[in-house]
């Protein structure tokens, strides 16, 4: 009997969901970054605007950056009209996306509770509920008993140092399976003839005067009339090669998962004050996140004391988590703006578009970004939903200041 090859008894590898073509020398549009935002943008460029001669360039592997490192929470309960408009548009797209892509995204509208722990936070939360309702976003204010009814494992005892005084509740919020979202978009793009090119890092830009006419990559130059950045934490590294300064700072953002546990956590819980957010993934891992590490970094790792603080808050709010083991922790590089809102729109360079500054909240906006950014790229002018998120706002002072309602204290 011949010696057995390890793994020989495993089934054949399935067909890939997408091809890996060689880059062509030119495209109508090039998208820099093959994460959720880049893929969604290419998808709506093709679907809504008929532009299919596109390359999505990814320096690593598809959706291997922040898309693979996030905590997958989807919600639209933002305070200001501009943010509510964009995130609610995204949420409506999420609600039909699995059918549209004909791919299971495991989108689960299990709701989100944003806890309030002080009288000021109660007032701010009630204000946000009212603002949400005026913007057509589903929102309710719940007292501690109602909170306990929705999430019985949450410690709503008044004896806590920071007791739960109530919560906002968005029933349509939830989670999705991040890998499936990327794969769903990638499969659709492949079928529409869009080139998804992995292992291709953009190292610079080709320009004629103030017009960007192509990109330099580790796999050769590519000419194009439209270059759209979707590179998250590395956006300023790319912009620096053009001498374009952006008001963003790159920070580590850590997340962690527990071992697999039986379903105990029925919703998503976020707390801004003690700062932790928790949901339970479909397989059973508790998925936890909190704020960024304070210092600038591209190291894709943060310090343990940040995790320690987050775990302290988690165990205080969910005493039963004290018995869970941490399985894995990791860090991403997030780009944070001074007003905690994203930047999406035109740049001083013709043919160069920027989408960055999503900080800790890029995943939930994925289809909304794709929709609006594609419009911006196709028409050379912002979609009404992203017009307020321009680069110019830092000069005019018309900031979209979502620090208060972003649900994160970065």
């Amino acid at each position, binding site marked *: 009997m011949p010696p057995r090859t390890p793994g020989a008894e495993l089934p054949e590898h399935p067909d890939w969901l997408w091809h890996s073509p060689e880059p062509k020398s030119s495209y109508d549009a090039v998208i820099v970054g093959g994460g959720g935002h880049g893929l969604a943008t290419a998808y709506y460029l093709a679907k809504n605007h008929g532009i299919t001669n596109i390359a999505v360039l990814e320096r690593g592997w598809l959706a291997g950056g922040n898309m693979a490192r996030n905590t997958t929470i989807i919600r639209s309960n933002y305070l200001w009209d501009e943010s509510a408009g964009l995130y609610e548009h995204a949420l409506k797209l999420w609600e039909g996306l699995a059918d549209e892509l004909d791919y299971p995204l495991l989108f689960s509208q299990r709701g989100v509770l944003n806890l309030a722990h002080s009288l000021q936070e109660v007032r701010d939360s009630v204000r946000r509920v009212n603002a949400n309702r005026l913007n057509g976003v589903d929102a309710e204010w719940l007292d501690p008993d109602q909170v306990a009814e929705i999430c019985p494992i949450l410690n709503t005892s008044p004896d806590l140092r920071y007791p739960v005084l109530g919560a906002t509740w968005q029933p349509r919020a939830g989670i999705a399976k991040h890998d499936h979202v990327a794969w769903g978009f990638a499969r659709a793009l492949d079928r529409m003839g869009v080139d998804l090119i992995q292992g291709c890092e953009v190292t610079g830009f080709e320009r004629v005067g103030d017009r960007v006419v192509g990109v330099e990559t580790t796999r050769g130059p590519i000419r194009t009339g439209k270059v759209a950045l979707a590179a998250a934490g*590395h956006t*300023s*590294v790319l912009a*620096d090669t053009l001498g374009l*300064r*952006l*008001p*963003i*700072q*790159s920070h580590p953002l850590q997340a962690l998962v527990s071992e697999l546990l039986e379903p105990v956590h029925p919703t998503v819980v976020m707390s801004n004050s003690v700062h932790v957010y928790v949901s339970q993934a479909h397989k059973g891992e508790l998925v936890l996140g909190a704020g960024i590490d*304070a*210092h*600038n*970094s*591209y*190291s894709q790792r943060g*310090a*343990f*004391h940040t995790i320690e603080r987050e775990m302290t808050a988690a165990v205080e709010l969910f005493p039963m988590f004290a018995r869970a083991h941490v399985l894995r922790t990791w860090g991403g590089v997030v780009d944070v703006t*001074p007003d905690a809102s994203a930047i999406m729109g035109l740049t001083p360079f013709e043919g160069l578009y920027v989408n960055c500054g999503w900080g800790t909240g890029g995943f939930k906006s994925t289809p909304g970004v794709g929709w609006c950014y594609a419009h911006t790229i196709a028409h050379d002018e912002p979609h009404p939903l992203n017009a307020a998120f321009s680069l110019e706002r*830092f*000069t*005019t*002072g018309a900031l979209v200041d979502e620090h208060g309602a972003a649900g994160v204290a970065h």
Partner: protein
Amino acid sequence: MMLIPCPWCGPRNEIEFHYGGQAEVRYPVDPQAVSDEDWARFLFFRDNPKGMFTERWSHAAGCRRWFTVRRDTVTNEIHPDDGASNARTVTR
């Protein structure tokens, strides 16, 4: 976890410090003459290099003084000599 060299107290755990971002950001000399664009630059725009960064830290749980170090934002390697030689308290 970083070991940050306070010029006055010596190397201490990161948790004792408060981060102050980019160093040597100067307040406009003649504020009345500054354009909207330059105010925006001063208020909101900072370097964000992948590599060496000159930045401010405050030893919040120690001597409470500010100082400057050079740190590689990819490896977190800190160059304490620069920090010690350039250390200065904040005057404003």
